[in-house]
């Protein structure tokens, strides 16, 4: 790693951890309904929302009601996004006259955005009207994130309540997450991003002149619209001269801000945050990258405050940060070392003051190696899934690390809310394992962890691997699965494994070569996203209900302290053991084989 690379990564991690406390403090006050200065502006409006919808904010729910409210609300979101896509051609704000979207693609995208995944089988600027982007996708970016945060807050209440049967009001938690946290942050970030050059306009796509004319050949069509063929049966080609460039624009900044802050990740344009109008400068890149991990990191501190012991939050944050930082030192050098095949062609891949060098295929010059790799780690550590470089073109090891971060269950920071509730499941398993070692009933934060909690935690931890590995196995066995693969050999397998790792952990990033917009993948990945969102969120709420009903046991000599370096190490060990043992065989068939092929070819010639 170069000096600048060290510096960039350090600056990022330090800024992130430094912001965790102030934002975490603020969010804890929001969820505990203590005064914050935004009350003055938003409280009357919040009250109006409750009055109109007939919600009594003081009336809390049992965990079952909480779960049903969440599911009903998400179902409405799904239906709205599905409907908007199916009807967009006849709706306003469609300056490019984009057609309606096929049912399988609409299903996939609607699931994807309602589950906070933002997997995108489609290509933004040639598919979605401005109306669909705003009214469908941007809305889900807010509320699916808010639903995740609400679920987490309910779980935290489970730890703090004693002998209670209620864990909060879903409508209130969801409303406050959106109004007090996501919207103000998005508004500020969106405006800063516009200042850097992210577009925000309702104008149609702009036409500009090209300095040099380019030409390309395309099959010539006859009067009947069918491609002409010459006597030998070959298609007749015609040359097309291009003198102008059509620049896709639109209301992007407002969506980009929340796509990052809500760990959604769905790009406005096809290439997501690699697009210069979605992520124009290194500063916009830094801010967007920070926005990805900001709320998940800060929620750790919120958790600590709400359970009355901030050390508990710091311990979780420490475990997340340590894994993240360690992986920086694997991925950045892998990409910086470049592609041996290019070295043989006398291509200069060395880092210097005048170029970043390394494996630049699929990367943008303004970001270079370090910022592209750091982003790939942030976006897959969180269940964000936006990209600023094409992961499919990463070196085998550089691409394996983001894939593995998803496979760990999206608990290294993870999605807003979902990351921390996932990590708390691992914490429950960690105290259980250590309880077995010392022969005591395990407890966490004063609550006894018993068979019911363990069963639910096991469900949460085991469902994603089942979905990922089962889905991948099925897809590589059938022709409809294999025919979508773009790159040959082991890398092709990685494309499929990456797709299911992404959908099966609600991440949303892709090895983009895979043609995923087919009925097979739209359906398979859609189901994968549904399973791994709700079959995790519902058991988590069940644990919340079960914990809330328990009494709090006082700390005794047999209690394992859960704020110590020892516990941090135990937690890291639990996460890595599950992740490594489950996925090493699959990773060996993809990235590992490809890496050996890549360096083997290099040394044999």
């Amino acid at each position, binding site marked *: 790693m170069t000096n600048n690379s060290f510096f960039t990564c350090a600056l990022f991690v330090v800024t992130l951890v430094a912001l965790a406390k102030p934002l975490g403090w603020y969010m804890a006050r929001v969820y505990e309904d203590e005064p914050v200065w935004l009350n003055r502006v938003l409280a009357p409006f919040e009250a109006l929302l409750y009055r109109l919808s007939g919600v009594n904010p003081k009336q809390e729910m049992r965990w079952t009601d909480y779960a049903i409210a969440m599911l009903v609300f998400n179902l409405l979101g799904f239906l709205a996004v599905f409907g908007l896509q199916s009807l967009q051609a006849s709706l306003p704000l469609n300056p490019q006259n984009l057609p309606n979207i096929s049912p399988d693609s609409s299903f996939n995208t609607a699931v994807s955005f309602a589950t906070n995944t933002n997997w995108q089988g489609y290509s933004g600027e040639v598919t979605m009207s401005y109306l669909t982007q705003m009214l469908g996708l941007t809305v889900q970016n807010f509320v699916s994130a808010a639903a995740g945060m609400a679920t987490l807050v309910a779980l935290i209440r489970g730890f703090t309540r004693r002998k209670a049967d209620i864990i909060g009001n879903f409508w209130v938690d969801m409303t406050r997450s959106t109004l007090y946290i996501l919207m103000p942050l998005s508004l500020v970030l969106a405006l800063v991003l*516009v200042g850097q050059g992210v577009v925000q306009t309702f104008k149609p796509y702009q036409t500009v002149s090209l300095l040099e004319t380019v030409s390309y050949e395309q099959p010539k069509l006859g009067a009947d619209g069918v491609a002409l063929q010459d006597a030998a049966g070959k298609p007749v080609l015609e040359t097309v001269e291009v003198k102008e460039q059509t620049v896709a624009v639109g209301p992007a900044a407002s969506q980009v801000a929340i796509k990052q802050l809500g760990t959604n990740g769905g790009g406005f344009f096809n290439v997501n945050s690699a697009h210069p109008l979605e992520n124009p400068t290194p500063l916009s890149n830094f801010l967007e990258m920070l926005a990805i991990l900001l709320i998940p990191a800060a929620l750790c501190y919120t958790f600590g405050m709400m359970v009355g012991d901030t050390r508990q939050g710091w311990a979780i944050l420490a475990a997340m940060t340590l894994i993240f930082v360690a992986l920086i030192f694997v991925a950045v050098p892998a990409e910086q070392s470049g592609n041996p095949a290019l070295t043989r062609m006398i291509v200069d891949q060395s880092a210097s003051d005048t*170029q970043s060098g390394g494996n630049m295929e699929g990367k943008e010059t303004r970001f270079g190696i370090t910022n592209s790799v750091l982003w790939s780690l942030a976006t897959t550590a969180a269940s964000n899934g936006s990209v600023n470089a094409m992961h499919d073109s990463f070196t085998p090891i550089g691409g394996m690390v983001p894939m593995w971060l998803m496979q760990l269950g999206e608990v290294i920071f993870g999605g807003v809310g979902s990351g921390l509730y996932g990590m708390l499941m691992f914490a429950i398993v960690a105290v259980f394992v250590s309880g077995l070692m010392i022969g005591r009933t395990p407890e966490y934060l004063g609550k006894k962890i018993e068979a019911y909690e363990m069963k639910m935690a096991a469900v949460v931890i085991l469902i994603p691997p089942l979905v990922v590995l089962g889905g991948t196995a099925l897809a590589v066995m059938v022709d409809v699965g294999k025919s979508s693969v773009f790159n040959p050999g082991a890398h092709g397998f990685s494309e499929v494994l990456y797709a299911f790792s992404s959908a099966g952990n609600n991440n949303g990033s892709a090895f983009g070569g895979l043609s995923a917009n087919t009925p097979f993948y739209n359906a398979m990945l859609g189901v994968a996203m549904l399973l791994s969102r709700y079959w995790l969120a519902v058991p988590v709420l069940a644990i919340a209900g079960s914990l809330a009903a328990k009494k709090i046991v006082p700390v005794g000599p047999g209690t394992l302290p859960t704020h110590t370096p020892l516990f941090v190490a135990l937690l890291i060990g639990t996460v890595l053991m599950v992740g490594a043992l489950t996925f090493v065989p699959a990773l060996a068939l993809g990235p590992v084989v490809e890496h050996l092929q890549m360096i083997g070819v290099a040394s044999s010639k």
Partner: protein
Amino acid sequence: MLKHLKPAVILFVMFTVLTGVVYPALVTGLAQLLFPNQANGSLITAENGKAAGSRLIGQPFSSPGHFWGRPSATGPFPYNAGASSGSNLGPTNPALVDAVKTRIEAFKAADPDNKAPIPVDLVTASGSGLDPHISPAAAAYQVNRVAKARHIPAEKIRALVAEHTENRQWSLFGEPRVNVLALNLALDAMR
């Protein structure tokens, strides 16, 4: 379930209006007021009043008298800003090796005297297919070719490149880079 339907529907409609209409409209209004150029695509206005390109969107260049940008994988022609795309070629894909070989040959053909190793960003496709920048090393590699084609001393071209080289933002963020379209517009304006 039914008792949750009413708040679900009403809150969903309210949040759709709030986050799907009010929020983007508010951002658009403020953006158009505060940053009108950036909000509409950072277009460069030429002397004739027409848009000569966008500062943030690269253009295809292949004549020896212009600096060439990153290879672009958009279809059906390079730098199609209506349909951004990367190549998605994996590192061990033979098609990547072939593509790089073709690009190297194009550089060698345009400037046979240049024996230096080619900077990697000149022969690898960008992520967006619209990358407006090349590295300073990639610009330096092309100075002699451009100078020869334009019959201008290389020193003058080098000075122009230096003028168009952006350092790391705030000396902290990202990588040093040269905006290819801005540089070529300046070249064409040079007499």
